[in-house]
């Protein structure tokens, strides 16, 4: 069987090259570990703001002793019923300030009015009828009082991420239900909350994932193209020829960057236009800001690709190295499920991936129309990645001349 000879030869050549062998062993492991750890489905560290003006008192009529005041502290009970693993709770005094944080610093803000406890108790008595409680050592019968619902509890929620929004509402429901059950009442959550969605539920799952998918497509194409081109330039010997000419590694790198940035911009335009045209994805922000994000993002990707091409002996290896960026990019950068669902270790990886920042910036622009002022963090990180990887790729270009 000559097929066996061919097979043996292929295997021998792969096994001989330590780097290829390592890649073959590590890649599947890497893939599974990332997938398994990132796809937990439960949320953590969702920041919410709570303003608790509830005085905790309920004033009720009784059959025996007239009107009495009970201390029930229902809002406080609700806050402590919230899962501390899921939420990072910020307590504020000013409701307006709290609501203004939604969409930027917090996913949701909830403001309990002064009469919250009172309203819940009177509703509970009205809906479940008379009942007896212990008051100052004797049993009293509570009577339904006049309708006094008071102002509703306002909940403002950022629904730019439909997944997080529904997770937050579900968690609030659970907490309310838990508190109300101890009151043995049939009061519903809906009747207590006045829910206001920041984007009125207009952001579809498609809109929500589109910026990340476009960013991922760019990562895929730019990194592959750049890494391949640099490896080819080196293995073909032309890089040596370039680097021995009176042109600095810096100029060579800038030339590459210019060319691939143009390609990246063209591809981005294609991705955006087709998505808008065919799928009518949400795009309410400034296209100029998108271009800025795309350029910084693309330059960083090229820098990373050039660095990968330095360690790759050939095109096949370059491809495999590229996967080490692509796999975490799709799974850990928040494209499908938010960073808040990932364990802290995985999130650390997320923060090392350019797509995390590009995705966050593009979402802010496209979904919520935020301007450059709101993108300072993302733009700074993308800019820093671009500058650092560019500098490193200049060094690596210089080095490649010696290894060519």
């Amino acid at each position: 069987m000559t097929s066996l000879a061919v097979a043996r030869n292929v295997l021998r050549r792969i096994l001989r090259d330590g780097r290829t062998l390592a890649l073959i062993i590590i890649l599947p492991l890497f893939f599974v570990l990332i997938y398994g750890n990132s796809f937990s489905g439960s949320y953590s560290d969702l920041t919410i703001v709570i303003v608790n003006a509830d005085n905790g008192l309920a004033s009720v009529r009784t059959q025996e002793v007239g009107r009495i005041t009970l201390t029930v502290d229902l809002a406080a009970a609700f806050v402590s019923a919230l899962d501390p693993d899921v939420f990072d709770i910020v307590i504020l005094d000013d409701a307006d300030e709290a609501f203004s944080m939604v969409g930027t610093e917090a996913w949701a803000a909830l403001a309990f009015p002064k009469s919250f406890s009172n309203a819940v108790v009177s509703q509970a008595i009205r809906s479940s009828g008379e009942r007896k409680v212990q008051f100052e050592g004797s049993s009293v019968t509570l009577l339904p009082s006049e309708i006094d619902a008071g102002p509703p509890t306002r909940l403002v929620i950022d629904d730019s991420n439909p997944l997080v929004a529904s997770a937050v509402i579900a968690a609030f429901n659970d907490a309310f239900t838990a508190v109300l059950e101890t009151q043995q009442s049939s009061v519903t959550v809906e009747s207590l909350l006045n829910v206001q969605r920041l984007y009125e539920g207009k952001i579809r799952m498609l809109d929500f994932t589109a910026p990340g998918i476009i960013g991922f497509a760019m990562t895929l194409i730019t990194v592959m193209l750049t890494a391949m081109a640099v490896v080819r330039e080196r293995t073909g010997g032309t890089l040596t020829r370039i680097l021995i000419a009176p042109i600095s590694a810096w100029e060579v790198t800038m030339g590459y960057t210019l060319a691939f940035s143009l390609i990246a911009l063209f591809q981005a335009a294609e991705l955006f236009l087709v998505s808008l045209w065919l799928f009518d994805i949400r795009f309410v922000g400034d296209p100029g800001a998108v271009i800025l994000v795309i350029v910084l993002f693309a330059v960083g990707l090229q820098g990373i690709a050039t660095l990968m091409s330095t360690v790759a002996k050939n095109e096949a290896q370059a491809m495999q190295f590229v996967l080490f960026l692509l796999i975490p990019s799709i799974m850990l950068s928040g494209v499908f499920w938010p960073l808040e669902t990932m364990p802290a270790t995985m999130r650390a990886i997320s923060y090392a991936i350019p797509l995390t920042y590009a995705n966050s910036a593009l979402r802010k622009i496209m979904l919520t129309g935020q301007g450059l002022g709101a993108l300072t963090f993302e733009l700074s990180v993308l800019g820093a990645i671009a500058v650092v990887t560019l500098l490193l790729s200049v060094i690596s270009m210089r080095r490649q001349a010696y290894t060519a």
Partner: protein
Amino acid sequence: MTAEHVIRAQGLRKVYGKRAALDGLSLSVAQGQLYGLAGPNGAGKTTLIRTLCGLLRPDEGEATLLGWKMPSTRVRSQLGYMPQDFAVYNDLSVMQNLEFFGQLYSLRRAQVRERADELLDLVQLTDRKRDRVGTFSGGMRRRVSLAISLLHKPRLAFLDEPTAGVDPKLRRSFWDYFNALADQDVTLVVTTHLVEEAQRCHLVGFLMAGKLLTQGKPEEILAQTGTDNLDDAFIVLQERGEVPS
């Protein structure tokens, strides 16, 4: 020798694993010389050229080109290098290759055209200059590579087997051209396995196992080995080299 030494190498050593590709090699070449590098396969000719050009860092020793310690960016515009493998863009035409490398040397469009005319005439590819290099034969590709290396009129050129796979007629005209360049004070270091080529050099260095076994004018080497042609001389030298003294 009165002329300035444009190449100076002192105690170059480059080790790969256990094998020394260059083993304490020293060499000086004066301006305007046509220096032939001979020696068996694996002798270290390519390694020497790459080290002199600053493309490899020697483990020991140092090299100066045109008075600059290598690797140096100062000599680049005056340095020509033709690698042993083709190192051309196969997906571009001959002219596109020449234009690109010409731009790297800041040649103006007209200069590139003028130089291209001269060199394409030399390598006999004028009528194919619009063709993609990828469609060329091996010898033709090497001719493109030579044209690229000499495009910017280097003062000092290292040509690694410029005639390998090139037919005899063209080979002869290449060497006529090299001699003419040397007459214009261009310094050339050319590796070769061909005796008739070595014979056309001002000086021949015979490398073996990373050492410069001997160096001299072709007729001096003949006298040294007591042979009447360089072919025999090289074989004698190689056999001497293989016997540890």
